[in-house]
């Protein structure tokens, strides 16, 4: 790699070639409000589960959009679907449906249906 005079940390790399956008496409097609998210993090701030453990819908959204889907299944399983995130979202994102759709998409991905 050419020397730019600075280095990129490994965990900051986004490898678009290797990333899998199928989950993102699945959600976009069924829940257009997925695209409204401006990643403010209100959802993560109010999260009932997030009070006890690491669960951030904001992070999930970013990861899905980037296509880095290897870790999200574990996170999605933590959601209790209580709906607080939907209420606080300033952009009117239908957050619960995103979680449900992401779960569906992962299942379909595992069954090679996507």
């Amino acid at each position: 790699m050419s020397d730019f005079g600075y280095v990129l940390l490994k965990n900051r790399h986004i490898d678009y070639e290797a990333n899998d956008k199928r989950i993102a496409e699945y959600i976009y097609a069924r829940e257009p409000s997925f695209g409204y998210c401006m990643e403010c993090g209100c959802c993560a701030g109010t999260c009932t589960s997030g009070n006890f453990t690491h669960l951030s819908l904001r992070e999930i959204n970013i990861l899905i959009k980037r296509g880095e889907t290897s870790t999200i299944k574990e996170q999605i399983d933590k959601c209790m679907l209580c709906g607080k995130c939907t209420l606080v979202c300033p952009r009117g994102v239908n957050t619960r449906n995103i979680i449900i759709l992401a779960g569906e998409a992962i299942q379909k991905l595992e069954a090679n249906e996507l």
Partner: protein
Amino acid sequence: MNFELFVIPFNIGLYFIIFYVVYRSVVWFLDLSRQDKLRLQRGFFGRAFWQSIKEIFSESLLHRKIWKTNARLGYMHTSLAFGWFLLIIFGTIEADLFGTSHLNPPYKAIFFKYFHPEPARSGIEVAYAFLMDLILAYILSGLFLAVLKRFSSKSVGMKKTTKLLTLDKVALTSLWLVFPSRLLAESFTSGAYGSGSFLTGSLGNALASFLPAEQLAYPFWWLYSLSLGTFFILLPLTRYMHIPIELFLIFARNSGIKTGDQKGSYTDIQIYSCSSCGICIDACQLSFSAGINNIQTAYLLKGIRENIDVTDIVPNCLMCGRCEAKCPVGIEIMPIRMIQRRENIYLPSERKLLKRYFPDRKKSPAPKPPVPPSYSWIPEGRSEKAKVIYFAGCMSHLTPTIKKSMLSIFEAAGVDYTFVDEEGGVCCGRPLMLSGQTKKARELISYNSKLFYETGADMLVTSCPICYKVFKESYKLGIDIMHHTQYIKKLINDDALKLNFMHKTVSYHSPCDLGRGSGVYDEPKYVLSYVARLQETEFEDENSLCCGGSLANTKIDNPTRALIAKDAARELTKNRPDYLVTACPLCKKTFGAVTETDVVDISELVAQVIVVPQAKRLMSNSPIMRKKKVTVKNNC
């Protein structure tokens, strides 16, 4: 004259449908669980039998509930059902009294005029002919309304009418043909023989004056028999199956059988009892506020019956229960939707005609493989010993004033309480249940149950109707569970809470899960009329509206929710109350965003008028009080 070829289609149809209904009923009975079988047997030889007979008369024939919804619609249904019933009963009596023999086969009564066309001989016969004509005219008037309803549903007082499948349309046409063809057949026969009363007689005379009545009568008797035969043959494949199955449903319900949470034969009976009358479509706020007209219960049940893909319909429902409250058949729609949500998978299958008439008996689904627990990471809950548990609920944490008000009420009444989810608790599990993930919900239920149990309390008070419903239905706590409105009423009645009266007018919005969902209508109103002037709205109790914020629907977007909320808020604030009062944090949030009127929870109002001085000091932070102070300041 004892037999004619044209009676054959009618006879085939009649004996087929009798055999079919008996066969299906026996299969359904055998598929009931052991307890339900016993219930049905006990019911059949007990009081339930007479209750059922009464209900069959008032609902299946007179359609009392539909009359209550809309008189014109009621008239339409009554005239067709009760009219047809009278025609059959009086027809049978007529054939027995005035025919040549007693105990005739059914076709003799149905085609009586053909076999006995001669004019009336005695006064009684004249009167009887008049009665039969009157009944026929009664049915025809209802039929006229039914035809009108297909073209303009508004004419019979319905906003929308159900869209029909092709087979339904064929059956509907044959049903529509039954009565006009009987009228014409009887009229032509009467015209030819100079008999008949005010309807068939006069019409017959008029027709006979320019038409060959005797020759024309015969084809119309054929048409009459054919349309009856077609209707009976198609009945099992169409919505008209509700006519025989509803009787079974009424017996089963009166015997104490409930839907429960498992799919079974009682669910099937209810699905077949739906008449697709469309009253659920009119009741649905998604229909009249948001223009979504394809997800209502009539379509869901039809979809399940016909094995059409309903996976999109199932989650797209607010589960407010308005349709269930209005359903004239009394189908337990909410439990059926919950069952459907749990197994919302569509398996397309090729359905041969024979399979459609005689579907496979339902087998219990294969047990799912065990899933690893999802919430094992939740830390052990801490609980203090107290007499009363206060569980605010997730939504109340977004409306902190409700929490504060409740705490000040507890303090004022000197209650020994513990606030279990003060630091943000674990969800009650109902949202997961509503999206069909019962297994995950069970984990949360056992976590919370343990937490509650450790406090040693004998009373659980919650501020959230969503939590209240699931605590009542799915938690086996063995302690008293109260919504805070019920608890405040109890405190007032126990003289533990002294309250002033505030000279403000309020309208009450009954939250779905508290009102229709749990049957708590009176306590909130009692408390409200104790502290303020409660105004009536057009949407009280079972007819109350949904705020649109419901957690049950994951499919609709925010603008759609806002449409529902705006409509509901407009209706509820028509009388311009000072406060729109609700008893649910979610309703408060949803309405707060769409109306100018102040939206408050009952606990907030009550906390404002507590007489105890210490509580007043605590109350000074309440938003309502604060708002007032700011206004005064501005005026100065």
